């Protein structure tokens, strides 16, 4: 038995969550990852970084569609409601915001989980970068 795995799961896949610098138009979202979790598997996301690299629309005060989601957000969800995402990383300014890796997101319920990054502004386009990874134990 290895120290790297638990007694419950013999293997794991480490999968990237990655989006190179991308223009994310106002009110738009991008699905940048999909993970299908089967019964008996376990998904952990400890690492997820959202970098709002640039504001592409100048001279405009950002108007938010949803006041709890910042300029832009990234999250993991199995439904369509963005505000319901878990592992939600939101930022209110240009820069990097990171999920607190000390308390990883853990999902054991089977389902199809999507990683979605979205521009929450109704009047500003953004340039965003996403890095991170999930591990699926099985």
């Amino acid at each position, binding site marked *: 038995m290895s120290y790297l795995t638990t007694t419950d799961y013999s293997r794991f896949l480490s999968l990237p969550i990655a989006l190179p610098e991308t223009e994310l138009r106002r009110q738009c979202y991008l699905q940048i990852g999909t993970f299908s979790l089967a*019964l008996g598997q376990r998904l952990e996301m400890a690492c997820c970084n959202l970098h709002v690299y640039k504001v592409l629309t100048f001279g405009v005060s950002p108007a*938010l*569609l*949803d*006041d*709890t989601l910042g300029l832009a957000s990234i999250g993991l969800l*199995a*439904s*369509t*409601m*963005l*505000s*319901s*995402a*878990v*592992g*939600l*990383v*939101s*930022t209110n300014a240009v820069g990097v*915001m*990171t*999920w*607190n890796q*000390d*308390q990883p*997101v*853990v*999902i*054991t*319920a*089977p*389902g199809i989980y999507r990683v979605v990054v979205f521009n929450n502004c109704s009047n500003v386009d953004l340039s965003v970068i996403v890095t991170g990874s999930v591990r699926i134990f099985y």
Partner: protein
Amino acid sequence: MLVTLREGIAWESSLAPVTSAGTYSGTLTAPDTEHQFFSAPDYQRRDRELAWLDTRNAAAVVEVSVEVNDVWNAAALRPVMQGPQVGHIDLSAQDVSAGGMLSRVVHVRNASLPIEALDVDRDLAGRDVLIYETLARAVQLFTAPPLTTSGAPASQVTAWSYAEGTAAQSDINTALPLDRDLFKTPDMNLADRDNQMAGYAAQLCQVLKNPFAFADRLYVAVYGVDSREVEVYTLVAPRFEPGLTYLEGDEVVYQGVIYRVKPGVGSTSDVPWTSPWAWEVVANPRKRVWTCEPALPGRNRFVYDTENQTIQWFRDIATVQHVPQLVALSVPGIFSGQTLQVVPKVPERKDGQFWRNKAAHVIPEGTALVDLYSLPTVAAAVQRGFLIQSDAASLTVPSQGSVYFPDPLTLAHPQTVPAGSYRVSALVEPNSTVELAGGENDQGVTGILGGATLSGFGQLSYSIGLPPTRWTVEIDYTNLSGSASGFRLVAALAGATVFNDIAPFYFNDVNGNPLPNGTIVTSAAFPILPSGGAQSFSLTWTGGTGQLHIRAIRFKSSAFAQGHYRISGTMAGQISTVDVVGSDRVPGVMGWEFNLPVASPNDLVLNYEADPQLPIRFLRMDLAREEANAATPNSQGFENYRQDCLQRAVRSAKQSFDEAYYSGTAAGTFLSPQNVSTAYSSGTTALSYGTWDSDATDRWMSLIEAAEPRLRQIDDIPSDAIVPGRQYYVASGTATYEGSNYVPGQYFSGNQDTTYSWAVAGQVNQVGAWQKAKATHNGRPGLVPVGVYFDYSTGTLATAYTPDQTTPELATIQPWMIEAGFYAAQPEFWLPVNV
């Protein structure tokens, strides 16, 4: 007197005292003394039985030594045994002498008769009992003493006699000359064996008298003010840390050498080996230091000063210092009424609540949401403008609704919240079914189970707004009195008939016989086309006999699988907006944030602006305040501590599940896990299989709770529902339990009495590491049963595993888990989500 201890005790010719039947007699062999007949074998056997008593004493020493090792984690002396033995001696009054019980042994002399050797034996036996009883009484300090008393009186002897002990194994034998040494030599050997056991016992008594000088581990509790649960402190060697300032007398270990700051130096931060004028090398540290988790720098420590024989406690908060106290297992703490208690027992398994308390000792930097008020259901009483459905309040079309959060104790309204940042989170569910209870009519006609019972022909009307698309209507109805085989009803929407009374709503079986009264029948669905605005839907009873009861009216639509929602919230003039897309029957969480500049009422107005597609149900709403954490000073490096505690709490829940299901108090009361075709039940407790709901969650939690009483928080415990082993917290008022009063902020544990009373009315909550998840807990860690999942295609909960496999697991709370009544970790386990 100096006794050199040998590493073991020889078995030699030890022999157990037995009856003629061969069973243990408990008394020494008694030679025939009436007929002046000298039987060497009897005398010999008696000495061998005394040697056997010595092995019992040795076994007792081993028992105590093992217990000392287990409790203090300190290596204690123990003799090597040459055979199995029981560590217990019973007082046999006829076999002991008063002198022996005072450790005195008078050997035979040249002028003695053989019979006088029996007196020496009684001295030796008395001494055996004395040694055993001394040890037995010393170990009574343990919570679970390994020895029980022999029945001998308490001895005041403080000095041991040597009793001419000499190691020379010899037995009485008829082949040897009948002289003094025939008896004295074996007795001197027995005295030597006693001396050995006395030496071992004395050493152990020293350890028991002052465990701080030996213990590698302490088990310490704090009672009274700022109480702490009993927990393990482990011996550590304080390492030199560059940059810290050390005061006179401080000791550190640096590169394997113990250094102490010299007297007169004042203070120093020099590296020890570079600064001989400030540091001196010492062979033995003056202070013994134990620490517990989280071992924050300079805190969470217990220090024993070997020179002054004092102990001092450093808690996790360094604001007030503890005055060193003279060594004892129980000493005064920092504050009046506070007691530090070193508990002499083997540490037991810790539950989730213990780890919750530990996690609270490290507060991370960042902000946290602090739950203030909750609406577990958006009940009719606290809202205005919502459409009240059978199981939830809803906004069915763009419209306005308002709610307020009453005081959970007094239900007083309005509630004013101070200036600050607040978040309202709502657990919502877009749903293409709108079900009205029959009693929610404009006429105020009510009936059983929320329905409406008409007393005669008449009309019921319902105000409802539905998105402007095709809908169908079903009606649940029954007959409550008299005989009826059907009811003639006219249904109208905004005055226009949508279903006429040409054909009745039947109330009979396939043979045409009337159904039993009370049987709920669902009508065939008929279509309607609402306008999108508020309209009146009416039902008019026009014909038939009996007594018509309308239980529910259900509107359904399959026009939209998803709905777009833009809902703005207003609190004290501050506006916040949600803009999301939701799926039919899939729970979600919406949030509104408000930054209130001044104290304001917590009334919330929701304005559903767009779009009229799918009605949305509001299953629960929670109000929380965003607060900046007062981070624990010098806690860098402990960022992960709360997560560590959380993992341990989950592990405890897992173990409790196993104990409850398989080996604990609830074990065996559940049906065989293999018998999946039948219900899993234990009296009134039934675990779910196949389907799942919030009731199933509560049954599952109560199963685990059988082995872990402090598993979950439950608010507002009735005064007759105290359960032994569970812990309770007084939230308000003054509660009286078993003669003691408890004020807000104080805890008490369930004991014999199952009831408490109120000195001042208030609220008592059950304490636990987990609390029922709120809408504000989405994305937070929770305790979930493995195998339970949400079927997004049907909008239902299901479980894939048999109950024996639904072990607890740590998982992130998702919206459907809140609806399923899963439990989230208490905030003490939380870390800031974004950094």
